[in-house]
């Protein structure tokens, strides 16, 4: 079952329906995104319907607990304070990208993350979430002041940095997944036996690594936006304490 021709770069090019004179297009990217969302939501709902808080934990609940606690601990490593606030956003980034990438072993499936539209959308959510979390935490003035540190000359560089890292997020994920699919497709044509299987396995690894990189980078950006000011505050407090100790 071949959904996407090898000559297509992105699943965006596989269009199922066109409505409203081509303004609304339902393509493979959207359909597979909905599929992944459906699996995630239905699976979560099914498992968390009857949660056990006792000593005996059902298998699937245990699996989800492992996933969620791994996400929590990673977030806590980056941002020790208020880590549970970031779990829904960062966790959803991770599980969505990971499941999208892992499902490529299913024949006929095309990862929505192989579309630059999807990765750009995810990168834009990160681009918007970072200042939102930063402003929520520090206030708008304190947050904006960060762009003029150490001097106002750095403002354009800060803005360029924000934009370029967002672009990097989008292109990194898209490039990795898309190129992998193309590589596997070409290899399948050249050496049809054994080697594509190894490449598929490698593809699972790459998919997981990309999901991890995307979400952990998002977390790092959020942390840098929320903690820059705090670090400075902690620094002055520490200096004050040191001075107190020196001159009691």
């Amino acid at each position, binding site marked *: 079952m071949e959904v996407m021709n090898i000559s297509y*770069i*992105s699943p*965006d*090019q596989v269009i199922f329906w066109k409505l409203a004179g081509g*303004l*609304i*297009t339902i*393509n493979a*990217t*959207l359909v597979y*995104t*909905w599929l992944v*969302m459906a699996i*995630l*939501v239905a699976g*979560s*709902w099914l498992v*968390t319907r009857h*949660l*056990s*808080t*006792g*000593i005996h*934990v059902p298998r699937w*609940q245990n699996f*989800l*607990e492992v996933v*969620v*606690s791994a996400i*929590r601990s990673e977030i806590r490593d980056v941002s020790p304070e208020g880590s*549970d606030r970031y*779990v*829904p*956003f960062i*966790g*959803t980034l991770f*599980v*969505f990208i990971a499941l999208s990438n892992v499902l490529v072993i299913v024949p006929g499936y095309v990862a*929505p993350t192989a*579309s*630059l*539209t*999807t990765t*750009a*959308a*995810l990168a*834009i*959510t990160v681009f918007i979430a970072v200042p939102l979390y930063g402003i929520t935490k520090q206030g708008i003035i304190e947050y904006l002041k960060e762009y003029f540190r150490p001097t106002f000359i750095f403002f354009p560089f800060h803005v360029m940095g924000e934009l370029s890292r967002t672009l990097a997020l989008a292109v990194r994920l898209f490039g990795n997944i898309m190129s992998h699919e193309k590589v596997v497709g070409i290899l399948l044509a050249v050496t049809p036996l054994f080697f594509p299987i190894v490449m598929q396995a490698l593809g699972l690894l790459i998919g997981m690594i990309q999901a991890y990189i995307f979400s952990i980078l998002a977390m790092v950006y959020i942390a840098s936006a929320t903690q820059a000011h705090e670090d400075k505050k902690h620094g002055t407090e520490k200096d004050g304490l040191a001075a107190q100790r020196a001159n009691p």
Partner: protein
Amino acid sequence: MHIDWFVFFAQIVNFLILVYLLKRFLYGRIIAAMDNREALIASRLEDAERLKSEAGQSAEAYEKKYQSLLERSEEMLNQAKEAAKAREVELMDRAREEVDQVRQRWLETIEREKISFLQDLRKRAGSQVYAIARNALTELADAELERRIADVFLDRLRNLDSTQAQAIRETMGKSATDVMIKSAFEIPPDIREQIKGALKPYLTDGSGIAFETSSEVISGVEMRAQGHKVAWSLNDYLETLEENFSQALQLEAMKKH
């Protein structure tokens, strides 16, 4: 690179919906379940710690109790031993006492038997001697002997020592009392007169002299007045003989012991 803007915004919306749904169905519930379990485990650990310390305390208490019971049982055993020893001593003492009592009773019985035997012997010996003496005296007795006996009595009466005579006189002087003369035989009238004459100094007015023949007085004559007695008879000698005999037997018994 082509970007479909409708799909782009649709993906943003899709992602935000997914964030909301997963927050609702996954993270919130799972984190709550894990926190609850952690709290449960913490409380169970706390309970376990508390129970452990309680168990340790009660084990210590039981150990102490056990030790005290051991000590107490040892003490009780010692007490029981001491009591048994004391009881043994007491029982031994009692047994000894009882043995002594039995022995005492036995000795007393022997003594009584001895006495009764002696009495019996004395009675028999006495009665034998009496019988012999009586026979002999009966065979020998004649008027001459009786007269002779009466003479001896009369002689005694006349030769009373001054103390006795004085005592008799004082007693008789107090009240008028009859003087009883007992004899184993009929005293001849002349001797009677002589006896009356000998007694005259002692008698007060109104006192009489009575003569009586009695077999108790063996071959003799005796005078009794207010507890005073003057006599001569074989009975005296026989009593002396009996006494000597009894003493001899007692000495013999003591030597045997």
